[in-house]
C-alpha cells in the first residue's frame, strides 16, 4: 500500500498576547491510501489544528507534511488550494455549505473549480445517492441539519478525492441522523476507495476506523498507531 499522508516532527505554536502556546508538539504518523483513520482527544488537545495542517489549511512552524506525494511546506496558499480541490474532500461539524448556493450548486462547486463540464450531472447523481434527489434546488436554510450534512458529504465526494477529512461530522446532529451520515461516509469510502480521516471525541465512532491517533495537550499519547 502507498502512503497518502506522511507527517513528520510537526510543531505548531500560537501566540496569545506575549505568550506562546505550543498546540502540537513533535507529531509524526502516516496514513495509507484507502485507510480509515481517526484522531481523538479531549477539547483543546490539538485535533482540529492537526487536521487543518494535514489538509493544507494552515502552515506548520516546523516539521513536514507530504500529502498525495506533495510537500505542503513548499506550496503557496493558492497552490495548496488547488491541491485541495483536486485531492481532498471536507466534511465539517457545522456543515459549512455556501448559504447563497442551492444544494446542487454547493455539490457542483469543487468540480466547477476544476473546469469540469459535467459538474451538474455528477452533483445530481451524488445528491440522489445521499437521498436528496428531491432537494436539488433548496438553499441550505431550507434544509434540516441532517440534510445539510448529507449535502456536505455529497460535496466532499464530488471531486472524487484521494483523501477525505471529516471534522466532528456528527457533532451538530442527533444520534440517529449522525449514524446515517457516518454510514454514508463509510459506504462511500468503501465504494470509491477514498482515505477517510475523522477528527472526533466520540470513541464509538473512532472505533469504527481502522486506526486511531490519540492526542492530549498537543502530543501523541500511548502507542501512536493503534491498530484495531
Amino acid at each position, binding site marked *: 500500500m502507498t502512503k497518502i499522508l506522511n507527517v513528520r516532527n510537526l510543531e505548531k505554536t500560537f501566540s496569545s498576547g506575549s505568550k506562546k502556546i505550543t498546540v502540537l508538539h513533535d507529531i509524526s504518523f502516516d496514513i495509507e491510501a484507502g485507510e480509515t483513520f481517526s484522531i481523538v482527544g479531549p477539547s483543546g488537545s490539538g485535533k482540529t489544528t492537526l487536521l487543518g495542517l494535514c489538509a493544507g489549511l494552515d502552515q506548520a512552524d516546523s516539521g513536514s507534511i507530504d500529502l498525495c506525494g506533495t510537500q505542503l511546506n513548499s506550496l503557496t496558499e493558492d497552490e495548496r488550494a488547488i491541491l485541495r480541490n483536486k485531492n481532498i474532500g471536507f466534511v465539517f461539524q457545522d456543515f459549512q455549505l455556501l448559504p447563497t*448556493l442551492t444544494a446542487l450548486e454547493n455539490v457542483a462547486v469543487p468540480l466547477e473549480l476544476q473546469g469540469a463540464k459535467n459538474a451538474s450531472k455528477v452533483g445530481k447523481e451524488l445528491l440522489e445517492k445521499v437521498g436528496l434527489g428531491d432537494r436539488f434546488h433548496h438553499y441550505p436554510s431550507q434544509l434540516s441539519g441532517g440534510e445539510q450534512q448529507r449535502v456536505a458529504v455529497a460535496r466532499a465526494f464530488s471531486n472524487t478525492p484521494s483523501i477525505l477529512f471529516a471534522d466532528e461530522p456528527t457533532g451538530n446532529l442527533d444520534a440517529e441522523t449522525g449514524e446515517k451520515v457516518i454510514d454514508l461516509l463509510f459506504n462511500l469510502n468503501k465504494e470509491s476507495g477514498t482515505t477517510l480521516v475523522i477528527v472526533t471525541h466520540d470513541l464509538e465512532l473512532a472505533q469504527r476506523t481502522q486506526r486511531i491517533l490519540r492526542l492530549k495537550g498537543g502530543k501523541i499519547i500511548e502507542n501512536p498507531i493503534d491498530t484495531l
Partner: protein
Amino acid sequence: MNRNKTITSRANFGWLLKMAWRDGKASSRKLILFMASIVLGIAAVVSIQSFGENLKENISLQSKSLMGADFRIDSNNPPNERVLAIMDSLGGADAREISFTSMAAFPKTELTKLIQVRGIEGGFPFYGDLETEPASAAGSYQEQDAALVDATVMLQLGIQPGDSIKIGTVTLPIAGALKSVPGSTAIFSSVAPPVLIPYRLISETGLVQTGSRVGYDYYFVANQGMNMEQLDKNLGPLLDTQDADLDTHTSTSQRLGSRYDNFGKFLNLVAFIALLLGCVGIASAINIYIKGKLRAVAILKCIGATKRQTFLIYLLQIAAMGLLGGIAGTGLGLILQQLFPLFLGDLLPVDVQMSFSPQVILMGLLLGIFMSVLFALYPLMGTLYISPLQALRVQNESKSKSGKAGTLVLLGIFLFILLFSYWLLKDWRYSFSFVAGIILTFSILAGIAKAFMKLIKKYFPNSWGFPARQSLLNLFRPQNQTLTLVLAIGVGTFLISTLYFTKDVLMSQATLETQSNSPNMILLDIQSEQKDAVVKTITEKDLPVLDDIAIVTMRVQSIEGKSVNQMKDDTTSNVNRWILTHEFRVTYRDSLIASESLQEGEWTSEVQDVEMVPISVSDNFADDAKVKVGDKVTFNVQGVLLNTVIGSIRTVDWSRMQMNFSIVFPKGVLEDAPQFRVLTSNVPNEESSANLQQELVKKYPNVTIIDLRQVLTVIEGLLDKISWLINFMAFFSILTGIIVLLGAVRTSKYQRIKESVLLRTLGAKSDQILKILALEYLYLGVLGGLSGILLSLLSSQMLAWFLFDSPFIPSWIPFLVLFPGIVVLVLIIGLLNSRSVITSPPLEVLRKQSA
C-alpha cells in the same frame, strides 16, 4: 508532483461570473443599501450634468434668436464717423436701437414704473420672435407709433392694450403686452422691464440728454458664408479703439453659456459631495456585506478556490451592481433634470429642450462601476487575507490587511476625487483646495471622535447609573462604531448646515439696512437746475434728502503723460482697457463716506486754483490703471482737459447698496462743470414711495427713480430660485447621509445584539436595554451633529471673510431645526435597527444570529 506545472486552477472567467451571479441573486436584499448609495449619488451628478449640457446645447442652438441678429455693434455713445464708415463697409445696419432706463407713467392708473426704453427701427428681431398679446401688435407697433409694454408690468399695474404710456414728454398708445424679446430673461429684466417704441420717437421723449446713460445698438444680418469669428477678429479691435463693441451671435452665446457654466460648476460640486457621501455609503455597505461573506470565502478556499478567484467573484459582483446602480441612477437623474426648468424657468435665457446626452449617460454608467469598485476595494481586500482555516473554527482575528495595499487604495480614492473634481471645475487650484477641504473635514471629525473616546475613558463617570455607564462604555469598547458614526453624521450635518450658512452670507450681502437714515430710494439724472425743485418736492412730503451727490462725466485723456490712444496702440501696455474707454461718473466732496476707507496717501477736502488737482481713486481703479499715489492723470471733462495727481487710494466696499465712486475730486474744482445730481431718500412704505414717484415723474420726466426695495425683492426672488436648487442637491446629501447612517448602525448591530442578548439572559429588563441603546445613539447623534454644525460655522465664517468679504450673521435654523432633527433621526434609525433585540426572547435572537 511538479508544482509549477501541474498546480493550476482550471475554472475560467465564466465560472467566476456564474458564482458572482448565484451568490449575488441570493444576497440581493443585503445589497439594497449599496445600491441606494450609488443610485442617489449618481442621480445627483447626472441630473446636474445633463441639465448643464442641455442648457449649453440649447444656448448654442438658439444663439441667433438669443441676439435676434447675426451680429451687433454697440456703444454708449452715438457712433462717430469711423464707426459709421465700418458699418457702411458691412452694407449698413439692418436695424438700430437706442435704449436707456427711465421712468414711465401710466395716465390711466396714475402709477409709475422704472423701465428700459428700447427705441427700435428696422426689422429687429431677425431671428426669434417678439411675442406679444395680441400677436399682431409685434408687427404693427412701429406703424401705429405705439408702444409694446412688458406683460408682467401691464398685469401688475392693471394696464390693457389701448391704454397709454407716458415716457418723458411723449404719450403713446399701448399696442400690446410684450411677453418675450429675444435675449432677455424675465429675472434680469424685472428691475427695469422693457418697453419697445419706434426709434423715431426717442428724440421726442426729450430723455437723451447730457449725462444720460444711453446704449446705441446696430443689428446686422450676415451675408451667406460670412465667418463670424473672422469678423470678430478683424473688426473687434478696430471698433474697440472707437469705444464700440462687436458681438456676434456665437460669441454672445459662448459668453452666456460660460455665465451659466460657473453656476453649474457650483451645483456640480454640491452634487459631487452627495456622490462622495454615496461613496462613503458604498464603502460602509460593502464592509457589512463582505463581513457577512468571509465565512463563505473561507469555505470556498477550503474546497479549492484561490485567493484571486474568491476576490474576483465579489469584485465582479460589485462591479455588476455598480453598473446596475449606474443605470438606475442615470435614469433617475435624467428624469429629475426634467424638473429643473419648472423651477428655474425665469432664470434661463432659453427654453431648454431636454435631450439625453450620450456623454452624460456614459459618465453615469462608468461612474457607477468605477466608484463601486474603488470604494469597495478596501473592504474587499478582507477576502484576500481570510484563512481557509476559518471554515474549521471561527477565529476572531484574521490576518491584518496589507498596510501597503491599504495605502494604495486610499491614494487611489483621493486621486479619483481630485481628478473628478478637476473634470467638474477645470481648475487644479480649486480641485486641490476641494480635496484638501475634504481631507481636513474628515480629519477634524475623526480627531473629535477619537478625543471624545479618550476623554470619556479618562474621566469615566463611575458614579452614574448602570444604563448611562453601559451606554458610555459602548462608545469605546472594541469594535465600536463611534468613529464611523461621528464621521457619517458629522459630514452630513456639516454639508447641509454649510449650505444654509452660505445662503445666509449671500442674503446678508443683499439685505438692505432698515434704519431710517440709510437710503432706500435713489433719484438719478437730475439736472442741476432741477435740483432745488426736486428737493422741495421730496421735503414737502416730509421725506428726508439723505444725500445730494453731484456727478460729472469725464474720460481719461492720459496717464503719466502717455495718451489713451498711445496706450491703446501699445500692445505691451498692461493698463486695463476699460480705463481707457470708460466714461467715468465722478463726484466731488470733502470727506470719506461709510463704505470707504483710506488705503494710501492723503485725503484732500478742498482746493482752490491749483494746477494739479489732488484726487482720490478706488483701489480697483489704481490696480487696473496701474497708477500709484503721486502719478499724474489728465481727464477730458466734456472737452476741457483737467490735470490731476493721485493724492490718495481708497478701499471701497462695492457690495453696499449705495452710490460709490471710482474717482472722487476735492471740493472747489468741478462745481462749475456741466453736471447732474443724484439724490437719495428714505421712504417708509410702498404707498409713500408710489406717491413720490408719481409726482416726480409728472413734474420731471427725465428723472430716473430706483426703489431699492423693489430691487431687493428681485434679488431675493433670484436667491430663492438658486437656493431651491441648492436645497434640492442638499436633499440628496441628506438621503445618502441617512443611508450611510443606516449602514454604520447595521455594522454595529450584531455586536450590540450579542451584548444586549447576554444582558437580557442575565436578567436585564427591556427598558434598561432600550435606555442603554437610546443613550448611546443620543451621545453619537449629539457629538456628530454638533461637530458638523460647529465645523460648518467655522468654514462659513471663513467663506464670508475670504470669498464674499461680507459680514456673516448665522441663522439659527441649523441649531434649532437641523441639530435636533439629526439627533432624532440617529435615535430612530438606531433603535429601529435594534428593535429585534428588545422584542424577541433571547434564545430566538441567539438562534437567528448563529444561523
